[in-house]
């Protein structure tokens, strides 16, 4: 089991001061310009063959998610089945990328996905608030991995980040990365709590420097989750990080993406910002639940020429 690689830029993570200087030296973000660019890309008109391609790609990028206190093994089994075969009436429909559950449901999900190639992702580190001692977070992570999680979605300590404790956040990510072992690590910033785009850019770089395999917008548990603008900003970050270090990192917007139209807008952002290299479930994911059914209905519409309805797709 490989140990997490050393920071891509060791000199900048040597101390809290060095890290702060580095993160605050990143180019600023003009919010109006960023949002205008995201909106402009949102006007792309994706039709016919491009739409069909985008729908299948989007399905294959979904981390089909249930993160409720009321989750039951039955619901998770049902979700797993749906992830493997999203549209029982059409075998050409691709499987989703993963099923995303709480750690205690990992084993159930794993069993349901056996042999399918669909990954099990688990949130960890005292999701969604991240308010626990490091030891608890690490135990949470190890539990999930031990239960069979292929991917770990951790939350950062937003309090520490906003207070300027960058090294603390950095080291915590490093520790979780190590605890996660070979599981791929997604680092959730909870962008809706970071307050500024500059902070999102800094968090992105901090996460990547610490060894994140994915950077992820949000938990889906706060008022504002993934938006075109914050996802665009994170796509710029992974693009620039690869240019500087050679290391490619994935992006996962999560929460609030419910329609095919939304999903395609995000794929346009990927295509025209990070580039086609990221148009792959290995490098881009949607954290979503209801999105899948809308994609399936749109897929049926393209195949049959008539609009579908909710009775023709499965409730999870």
């Amino acid at each position, binding site marked *: 089991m490989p140990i997490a690689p050393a920071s891509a830029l060791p000199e900048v993570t040597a101390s809290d001061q060095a890290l702060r200087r580095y993160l605050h030296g990143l*180019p*600023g*973000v*003009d919010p*109006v*310009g*960023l949002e*205008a*660019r995201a909106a402009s890309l949102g*006007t*792309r*008109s*994706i*039709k*016919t*063959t*491009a*739409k069909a*391609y*985008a729908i299948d*790609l989007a399905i294959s990028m979904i981390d089909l998610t249930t993160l409720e206190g009321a989750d039951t093994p039955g619901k998770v089994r049902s979700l797993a089945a749906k992830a493997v075969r999203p549209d029982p009436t059409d075998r050409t429909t691709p499987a989703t990328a993963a099923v995303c559950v709480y750690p205690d449901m990992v084993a159930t999900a794993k069993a349901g996905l056996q042999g399918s190639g669909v990954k099990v992702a688990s949130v960890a580190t005292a999701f969604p608030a991240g308010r626990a001692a490091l030891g608890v977070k690490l135990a949470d992570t190890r539990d999930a991995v031990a239960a069979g999680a292929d991917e770990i979605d951790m939350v950062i300590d937003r309090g520490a980040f906003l207070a300027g404790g960058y090294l603390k956040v950095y080291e915590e990510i490093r520790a979780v990365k190590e605890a996660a072992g070979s599981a791929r690590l997604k680092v959730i910033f909870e962008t809706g709590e970071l307050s500024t785009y500059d902070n999102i850019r800094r968090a992105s770089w901090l996460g990547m420097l610490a060894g994140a395999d994915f950077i992820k917008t949000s938990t889906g548990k706060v008022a504002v989750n993934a938006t075109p603008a914050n996802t665009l900003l994170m796509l*710029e970050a992974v693009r620039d990080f690869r*240019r500087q270090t050679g290391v490619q990192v994935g992006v996962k917007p999560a929460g609030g993406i419910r329609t095919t139209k939304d999903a395609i807008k995000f*794929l346009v952002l990927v*295509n*025209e910002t990070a580039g*086609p290299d990221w*148009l792959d479930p290995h490098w881009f994911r949607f954290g979503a639940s209801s999105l899948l059914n809308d994609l399936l209905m749109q897929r049926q519409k393209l195949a049959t020429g008539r609009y579908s309805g909710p009775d023709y797709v499965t409730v999870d």
Partner: protein
Amino acid sequence: MTTTTNPFAYAPAPESRAIVDIAPSYGLFIDGEFTESSGQDRNKTVSPATEEVLAEYAQANAEDVDRAVKAARKAFEKWSALPGSERAKYLFRIARIIQERSRELAVLETLDNGKPIKETRDADLPLVAAHFFYYAGWADKLDHAGYGPNPRPLGVAGQVIPWNFPLLMLAWKIAPALATGNTVVLKPAETTPLSALFFADICRQAGLPRGVVNIVTGDGRTGQALVSHPGINKVAFTGSTAVGKAIAREIAGTDKKVTLELGGKGANIVFDDAPIDQAVEGIVNGIFFNQGQVCCAGSRLLVQESIQEELLDALKRRLSTLRLGDPLDKNTDIGAINSAEQLARITALAETGEAEGAERWSAPCELPSAGYWFAPTLFTNVTQAHTVARDEIFGPVLSVLTFRTPDEAVAKANNSQYGLSAGIWTEKGSRILAVASKLRAGVVWANTFNKFDPTSPFGGYKESGFGREGGRHGLEAYLDV
């Protein structure tokens, strides 16, 4: 222009042209109706993207212009005597009809001009309607505009507009003229007469009194006849500096009031602490919006040495994602050059750039076989002495220069016969204010570029012309003050 290996190639998404019904032939709009020219000369207007002939139209001669001026003069008496609140309502009507018909007009403009539907739909048309709406509100408030009580209109305004924003320039001219109680004779550009002729129909729908707006089409000779007509009181011109100077000479010694919106060679200054990603977008917007056929284009990029490489890499990467092609396709970023003549001028200047030793880079894209096209291009290793750093190219060609200190940036930015626009990119507020105050340019965009609004005065210093259009300032050009 996405790479062929990209599986996510956007399928064609053309806007339907069925929404617009172009007649095969157009006359002149004089005294509230379409009439034929007294002469026989006719011109054709083509779609620059396909070279397809869209329609024929009349070449107005001096006699036609005289007829139009007389109609406007006759209409002036009543129009200027109307209560401002009544004039306002006509303009509000026009604004609303433009909003209703905006998709039709956007498609029309794209067909006749060659610019992408994305721009006509999202920029030109919304701004056109907003401009009429804005000046409509002034019509009954002129006493409060800061020009003293009861400011009077000038009379008949002769207006000559360019082809780069045909309907928007019409709005910039007609809206303030009518709001202040003037009547107009407007000549649209030779290559883009259609939207002005459609506007005539909007005037009809709005019930505008006859003769208040007259549209005479034709080439430079028509414009010359209009500008030199003794019966006009005001000349408003947007176009080239050369023609602007000729007009200034023409009206010397007369009482005609004049405003000129002319050429530019805008400097877009990027400091090392700029918000880089937004700066890249601003640079692209600055020079590739409307294929760079914009008088206030940021056609000179002044980049601080320390970030030159990083910025140029990012810029080239970004230019490689620009989609050039069918202007009616909703995903098209770069449309056609407006005319063969303009394409030849751009081509010649780009060749001069190469011949003078500047390094040329063009985005890798396939140009359609028919129509007038020019790939987004940038020149590096450019100095102040290069032609491409001094002459207005009016096309999708960016000249990149470097600087080391803010003083040097300002000196280079101001080292131009023009003074229309400039851009500043830095996160340091005090630097923005310091540099903005030193730039000799009428519009300065800081951390943004190519933004327009009816409330915001627009116009140049030096040889970029004089007078301001937009805002309260724009009223002055049409009032006897």
